[in-house]
């Protein structure tokens, strides 16, 4: 039997590295390396549409960004889009979860209905809404508004309505996630705490505010984090529904970076935009995670 010092520990370490290193190295290769490349590109003048313009641009792209109204538009839209949809998802998801909690028999069918939006491809969801739901004259929404006598709207063609529409689409698709997670969390709450509160003469609203909410807070925070990440990088649904338009009225930063890089072929500037989006995402997630850590317990 080995008398080598720490034979057992070394063995464990070797075993662990054999298991872990392949994934780690692969990820390093396909995420970190490209990011470095991206950062490099953002410092270049690289336009595939005008290949004669090339060379080091330094921070030129970023300076240009600061003066680009389309950039600020996309930033504002990103903020609006993300915050609206996440807030809506939580509010609606929580309310529905609380409601459904009280009808145990309906829960099975609710779960099935809730799964459907989540499993669909976002691009198909955008497609559905564009054609079947929001299309003027034939879409579902149009039928309803006409039946209610509220008239006819061009949901995706009107700049303001388009933004509302894409927010609605994203919310429609992802609220079930919040709903399911919160429903499951609520179901795990111990009933005796509520019984004690009832004996202490707390009414339904007080019980909700002082007991339910604090107890499900970790789940809510996690949902917020996950949904925010998804909203910041939402692409396919908007792309399918409006393409970023009309004009730039639904062009969140994500889409702006994409369009700049692949439609206008200005890779250098597009890379810079992507870097900014990356920075924002990292900042937001860091803040949210810190808040989660502080708030837990």
């Amino acid at each position: 039997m080995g008398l080598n010092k720490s034979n057992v520990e070394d063995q464990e370490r070797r075993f662990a590295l054999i298991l872990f290193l392949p994934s780690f190295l692969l990820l390093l290769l396909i995420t970190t390396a490209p990011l470095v490349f991206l950062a490099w590109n953002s410092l270049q003048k690289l336009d595939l549409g005008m290949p004669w313009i090339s060379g080091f641009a330094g921070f030129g792209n970023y300076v240009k960004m600061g003066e680009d109204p389309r950039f600020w538009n996309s930033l504002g839209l990103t903020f609006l889009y993300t915050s609206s949809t996440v807030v809506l998802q939580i509010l609606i998801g929580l309310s529905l979860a609380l409601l459904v909690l009280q009808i145990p028999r309906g829960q099975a069918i609710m779960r099935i209905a809730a799964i459907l939006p989540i499993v669909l491809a976002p691009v198909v969801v955008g497609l559905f809404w564009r054609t079947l739901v929001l299309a003027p004259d034939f879409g579902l929404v149009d039928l309803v508004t006409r039946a209610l006598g509220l008239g006819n709207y061009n949901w995706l063609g009107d700049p303001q309505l388009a933004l509302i529409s894409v927010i609605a689409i994203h919310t429609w698709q992802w609220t079930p996630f919040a709903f399911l997670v919160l429903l499951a969390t609520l179901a795990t709450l111990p009933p005796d705490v509520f019984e004690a509160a009832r004996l202490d003469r707390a009414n339904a609203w007080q019980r909700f505010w002082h007991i339910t909410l604090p107890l499900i807070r970790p789940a809510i925070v996690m949902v917020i984090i996950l949904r925010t990440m998804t909203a910041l990088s939402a692409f396919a649904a908007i792309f399918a529904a409006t393409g970023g338009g009309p004009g730039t009225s639904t062009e969140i930063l994500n889409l702006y970076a994409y369009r700049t890089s692949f439609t206008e072929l200005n890779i250098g500037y597009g890379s810079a935009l992507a870097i900014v989006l990356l920075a924002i995402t990292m900042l937001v997630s860091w803040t949210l995670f810190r808040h989660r850590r502080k708030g837990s317990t």
Partner: protein
Amino acid sequence: MNRFGRQVTLYAVSGLLVSVWAFPVLWAFLTSFKTERDVLAYPPMFFFTPTLSNYKEVLFGTSSILPNLWSSLVVTCSATFFTLCLAIPAAYALARLRYPFRRASGFYILATQMLPPVGLVIPYYLTLQRFGWLDTYSGLVIIYLTFSLPFAIWLLVSYFEDIPYEMEEAALLDRAGRWRALWFIVLPQVGGGIAVTTVFVFLNAWNEFMFAVVLGGNRVRPVTVAMFNFISVEQTQWAKVAAGSMVAMAPVILLGLLAQRHIVKGLTVGAVKGGGRR
């Protein structure tokens, strides 16, 4: 409001919910069996003579999406397979074993999930183009690992952590050695977790759009891209679009319905214990 009244309202609201969430899919389902003329009828027809012509065209016509289904199948299954092969051992190591920089590497994996895809697709495009790997299966599968792998690892870690450590210790004392302890004792216990992870990885990969549209091409074109093209090409042919969507989404809808308990469990595990793309 009395008890009965409350129950009625609750059921009414739930019914409304079910319809809001399920209706678009059901409506698309219905529409896919209508003729184009019936689709344009107003008020909309609930009762009509169904036709399979849309499906026939979508599957066997000139713009058949069968090759796209094949692309999706190959890419998704390969990505899922490789993801699991890499993620299961990595998650076990992360959850259980002691090695240098374990915590840091754990955070790293979590961080990679936060990357916005648009930031990655630009360098990917340039790199794959230079090596001639655009529009290839291998190229696409490797890129799909970008989002599958960290997510799968993070999900699996929580399942591995749920297994009492003493069981592995008992196996070690029983002279199983680390590899056999993992194979005979640990893996059978996380079977459920692996199933859930597989479902999610498959879903995410099947539904991927941005990477597919930028890095694929004429040969490798998953159904998501095909559907997107449908919009521009088949402008007002709603019925055909509906049929196409049904076919494109059939696998995931089926998976969703069959595995719904697993999915719900996976959502809660992922949400409560941290990380996750969906």
